[in-house]
């Protein structure tokens, strides 16, 4: 059995990338909102980190959706997903969340950046100015709705797979939570990476704030991963077979222990703890840690998708 081609494999890596990008977008937005709410307030639009998140979130979610569409066997029929709904289908509901999310996301970006944009417009495009002012006035509502939507989107990426009842590794109640948390941490990492690339201060309050949240988040992620596999192994039967197939010897076992646990969780945790004691953060530290977590989450998505489909009930 090869790692990328085996009997029963239906969904390939494009789906993993789609799940990764959707979670990343939700996470970036979530952290941008937190940054603005707890640290930056009115000056949020000046922060390269918030700017990075405002760029990354829409690009990631649109790219993800694009990949999903291309991966259909009938890409041109995509509009049918938007027209016909099935309330019992996670995918259908997810697409709905995704659409509303995108809309509210753009509204939020408009409201956060209304001040500088309106200044730059300087009276031109009267209608646009008025729109942005209106959005800015309702920023608190937009923000509240966007927080809920981003969390739903993050969890949806897990629910999409956990609805597949034929695979014990996927049909698992911990999976949505695991994907939500790892999606959030990939969003945090993308925000940090984008921020420092856009000449944000690697020792600024934004980085300190995000890193402070990241340490407990990585710990929760490790705990969830442990619960995930311990639960499967203790269930016995095919669940146990599936779990041991996934994290045992072989290509995906290496990806899990080396990539997901090693590069994705342990190293960022170690770096973060170290950065906490050493007061000075440098560009390379922030960039490398963020890249490691991003890589880890991307590998986790592929690992779960492939090993999940390897063992059926």
């Amino acid at each position, binding site marked *: 059995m090869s790692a990328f081609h085996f009997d029963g494999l239906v969904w390939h890596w494009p789906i993993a990338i789609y799940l990764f990008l959707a979670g990343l977008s939700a996470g970036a937005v979530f952290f941008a909102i937190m940054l603005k709410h707890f640290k930056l307030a009115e000056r949020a639009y000046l922060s390269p980190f918030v700017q990075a998140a405002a760029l990354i979130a829409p690009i990631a979610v649109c790219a993800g959706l694009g990949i999903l569409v291309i991966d*259909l*066997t*009938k890409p041109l029929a995509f509009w049918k997903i938007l027209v*016909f709904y099935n309330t019992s289908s996670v*995918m259908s509901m997810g697409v709905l969340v995704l659409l509303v999310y995108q809309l509210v996301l753009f509204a939020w970006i408009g409201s956060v950046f209304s001040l500088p944009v309106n200044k730059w417009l300087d009276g031109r495009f009267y209608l646009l100015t008025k729109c942005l002012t209106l959005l800015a006035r309702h920023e*608190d*509502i937009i923000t509240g709705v966007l927080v809920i939507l981003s969390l739903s989107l993050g969890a949806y990426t897990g629910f999409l797979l956990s609805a597949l009842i*034929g695979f014990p590794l996927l049909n698992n109640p911990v999976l949505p939570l695991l994907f939500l948390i790892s999606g959030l941490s990939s969003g945090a990492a993308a925000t940090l990476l984008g921020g420092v690339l856009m000449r944000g201060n690697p020792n600024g309050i934004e980085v300190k704030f995000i890193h402070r949240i990241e340490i407990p988040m990585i710990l929760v992620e490790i705990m969830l991963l442990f619960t995930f596999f311990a639960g499967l192994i203790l269930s016995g039967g095919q669940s146990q077979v599936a779990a041991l197939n996934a994290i045992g010897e072989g290509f995906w076992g290496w990806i899990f222990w080396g990539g997901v646990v090693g590069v994705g969780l342990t190293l960022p945790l170690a770096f973060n703890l170290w950065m906490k004691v050493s007061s000075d953060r440098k560009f390379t530290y922030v960039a490398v840690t963020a890249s490691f977590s991003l890589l880890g989450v991307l590998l986790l998505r592929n690992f779960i998708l492939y090993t999940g489909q390897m063992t*059926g009930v």
Partner: protein
Amino acid sequence: MDTSKRRFLKGCGGAIAGVSVYSMTRQPLARDAAEESEVKYAMLHDENLCIGCNACEDACREVNQVPIGVSRVDIVRTGPFGEYPEQSYRFSRHSCQHCEAAPCVKVCPTGAAYIDKETGIVAVNEDRCVGCQYCIAACPYQIRFINPVTKVADKCDFCQQSQLTRGLQPACVLACPTEALVFGNLKDPNSALVKTLKSKPTYRQKVDLGTRPKLFHVRTVDGEIVL
């Protein structure tokens, strides 16, 4: 700040109330419609009568225009069991189980995979299918496939589109030389299907998943006991 927060909460409350009222009104209706129909088709495969001739596979391919490389029904052969010359094989049918609680129908985003209320057949609406393959991944029996010609999720539909519209039995049933396949209406106590179901012990696959399949099997006397 405070008024907008209140407005936001009110909106949320309204949405939740709306959703709950909607779901309360919707469900009983759906149940009624399912109970009305007089017809519920099912199939039985008698592994003791099956000789593994593959006539069913060929007939299905021809009648339903199934392209080479994919198939709606497979007869899976295991064995040989026993010592020469007393050797035997086991043949089991691998095709759509027409689940009452069909996972494929549940996950399909467009409703292209649907249960025909009149007959209980799990069918595919080709026009609506976008080819997301969610149903293929969701089917625990792994019998759905993408038809390479139409690009649509395809599977056995009890010949809903071909034979049944002409009042005929499914192609595989007619083609079987040993009458190992029995097709009929579960709600008709006089049908050959119900009579066979009541006279022979049958099993269904993966019932513990709660899919309530409508493909019954009579276990062969050949083969080995697997624990």
